[in-house]
């Protein structure tokens, strides 16, 4: 999200320096070449480069020294123990610290575990003997963007700012106002702002888990969860989400662990947050089970069956596979002895095969020989699968978008009356 943000500031008239460790990224930016799709980004980048408002560099020291306002936005992943890995963030902060001067304003947009700004980053920055809130400004302002909707959300959502002192909050607010017309929401401190960001992801995770569990019940009741959800949401103050075969990406499956793994007894302190993760992480397995059940109903064994998974990206049109349920399902199906192939319109055959280790190929050819199709990511293109498959091919819809599916998440087999 760093590049769109830099472009937005450049468009507002600031002179922006973008820093990255990847020389290819730096080169691309300076040549105004984008390497991912995002509405409005191409034009904005081209304009910023042309007007000399934006330059990219590998040299972080130089960038810090020549700037007044320093923003860090490095995605934070989880390590093997599912603990947030903040080593890179610390490295960057060390560089900022070494080049910090009086009057600098330092801000973080990366989604962080609660307390990181005040308890970890602030002491690093203060190694210089400059004091946060007195000699330099320090604030946290969570990025609340979403791939594919970056600029619209930047315009429509209020910018949340939590600073160590009022003056910094004011300065940061004035600067963000130039790119966030919806306005500024100043909160008491950085940790409150950190919590707000995590809370939003958690709301979705828990509500998706709720929908997933209710979908499993609907399946047993032999009723369609989508009909029920529509009815539930017809009443005021309800926003029941849709169930699905898994939650992917680098936000929702990751952020709850910032809280869960900061606690010894997460079961007691945040039982819902923890249970929601478990339920959602279990959905690929549930979806595979549905495929197995449907094959069995047709007298087929999953062992040796040709199974095509449609969709590798965790969300349609996003060329990212982090935590994609497809990867998990492919692995499980292989263990069960199925022949798995994967297709996704935004990836080439070679890309899919390299990422997943499963076979890929041409869409229609794959469907033609499939015994079972599992839709993991929904693209418009997938409507009308039925016409392209064998008559007795099982279609499992992990996104509940297809009318022709035999089974969905909380959509029991048609014609089976209890």
């Amino acid at each position, binding site marked *: 999200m760093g590049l769109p943000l830099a472009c937005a500031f450049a468009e507002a008239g600031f002179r922006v320096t973008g820093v990255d460790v990847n020389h290819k990224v730096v080169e691309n930016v300076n040549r105004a070449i984008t390497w991912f799709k995002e509405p409005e980004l191409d034009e904005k980048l081209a304009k910023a480069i042309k007007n000399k408002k934006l330059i990219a560099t590998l040299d972080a020291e130089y960038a810090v020294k020549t700037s007044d306002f320093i923003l860090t936005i490095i995605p934070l992943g989880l390590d093997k123990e599912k603990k947030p890995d903040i080593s890179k963030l610390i490295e960057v902060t060390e560089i900022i610290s070494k080049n910090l001067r009086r009057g600098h304003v330092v801000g973080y947009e990366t989604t962080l575990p*609660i*307390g990181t700004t005040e308890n970890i980053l602030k002491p690093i920055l203060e190694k210089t003997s400059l004091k946060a809130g007195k000699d330099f400004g320090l604030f946290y302002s969570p990025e*609340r963007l979403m791939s594919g909707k970056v600029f619209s959300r930047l315009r429509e*959502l*209020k910018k*949340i700012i939590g600073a160590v002192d009022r003056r910094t909050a004011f300065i940061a607010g004035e600067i963000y106002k130039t790119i966030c017309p919806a306005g500024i*929401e100043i*909160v*008491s401190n950085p*940790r*409150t*702002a950190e*919590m*707000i960001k995590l*809370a*939003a992801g*958690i*709301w*979705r995770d*828990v*509500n998706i*888990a*709720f929908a997933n*569990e*209710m979908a*499993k*019940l*609907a399946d*047993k*009741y*032999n*009723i*369609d969860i989508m*009909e*029920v*959800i*529509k*009815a*539930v949401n*017809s*009443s*005021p*103050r*309800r*926003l*029941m989400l849709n169930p699905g075969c898994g939650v992917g990406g680098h936000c929702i499956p990751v952020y709850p662990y910032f*809280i869960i793994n900061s606690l010894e007894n997460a079961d007691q*302190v*945040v*039982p*819902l*947050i923890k*249970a*929601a993760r*478990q*339920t959602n992480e279990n959905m690929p397995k549930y979806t595979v089970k549905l495929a197995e059940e449907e094959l069995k109903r047709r007298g087929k064994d999953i062992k040796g069956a040709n199974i095509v998974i449609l969709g590798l990206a965790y969300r349609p049109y996003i060329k990212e596979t982090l935590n994609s349920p497809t990867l998990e399902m492919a692995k499980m199906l292989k263990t069960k002895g199925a022949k798995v192939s994967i297709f996704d319109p935004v990836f080439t055959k070679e890309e899919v095969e390299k990422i997943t280790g499963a076979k890929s190929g041409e869409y229609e050819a794959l469907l033609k020989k499939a015994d079972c199709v599992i839709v993991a990511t929904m693209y418009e293109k997938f409507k009308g699968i039925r016409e392209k498959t064998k008559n007795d091919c099982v279609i499992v819809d992990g996104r509940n978008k297809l009318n022709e599916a035999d089974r969905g998440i909380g959509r029991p087999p048609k014609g089976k009356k209890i």
Partner: protein
Amino acid sequence: MKINEEVLTSVEKRSRIRICVVEYKGAGLTTACLLANAGFKVVVVDKDRGVVETVKKGESPFSEPSLQELVYKNVKERKLNATVDIKGAVSKSDVIIVAINIPVDEKMRPDYSRLETTCKEIGKDLRRDSLVVITNTVGPGVTENLVKSWIEDASGLKAGRDFGLAYSPTLAAAEKAPYDISNYARLIAGIDNESLKAASLLFKTIINSEIIPLSSIKAAETAKIFQNVYRDVNLALSNELALFCERLGIDYMEVYKAANTDPYCHFLLPGIVSGHIPKDPYLLLKEAEDLGVKLRIAKLARKVNESMVDHTVKLIRKALRRHSKPLRGAKIAVLGVSYKANVKEPKGSRTLKLVKLLQLKGAKVKVHDPFFNKKELSELGYPAENSLEKTIKGADCLVIVVGHNQFKKLSLKRIKALMRHPAIVDLSHIINPKEAEKEKVTLISLGRG
């Protein structure tokens, strides 16, 4: 069936349709009033003689002004009546609307015994071609599996062939039931198309909003319960986060306000009160378990919400500690026994549980709620006090459970002067923390770390 487009065209024709509504609670009386107001001849059936007499006089047993007006007007115009005689009422009716609250027993199992008795009574006198509509919340499958056979066995008639059977849950909050019923979308499902059509036509006469037909009664029963489980889960999530904020020294109210500026985020206000909501999840938790489905989220939500009473006691202890006062022997004033602010409805409130727990731990508790008089409070099991002043006087801690508007007018100066120790536990966030600080009042606000 007697309900069709033709008979509904004029109020004059509607007056020839007789409807009986079984039980006045659970919005039964409101539904009856609205139907009477639409022109039908309606009788409310209830075993409570006192209530029947009240309604016959044109008075409402509820304080809600809009309902009082409706009862008065329709009784006066002889469109609404009340009786204890279910036999007489059913045998003369074209439509029977059932509005019976389903309680859960100590083991948290739904108790359908009263619904069963009533359905059997209805069955005995049911006329051919009449329509039966169940409007209360029931477990998925109850209407088609239990209600249907209870009525069929007692009547010898067959649902779908000899009489219509539909399910259409009421969604209404206390004190604004006439508004809610008229303005919220209405879910309707029937045992067959004819029942669905008749019930839809009937409710269209009282609903300004959309009629949402569902493909099966079971789907409608499930949707109604999910509406409440959704609220329970989201209240629990908000409570969980509020408590977590307390630990971290973060103000949940700030998080709530800022996080909800994202349209994909709907946090609720934390609290220990939630009306019907605590009960409804139990209508399916047990059955889900039998079907082998783990509803971890719904189950944990119940646990989290129920634990809020214990948490309140913790907050009270914390407030008292600031004044070096133990809970044992402390005088505690508790405000609010309604399930939510600005209504007179004690059902679903957790205040009684809180009071009992405080008493068990040796505290001396006094309770006040401006919507109830001392007698009413005593009948509900509360150690009641007549006035707000008397309740607060000499107290070591004041606990605001429900944020009635009257409590918002409380002056902190006055409270401080009346109390022995100025300590407040505010569960409904009506006291301004800055003001409390200024007045040197100890304020522990739920979720505000």
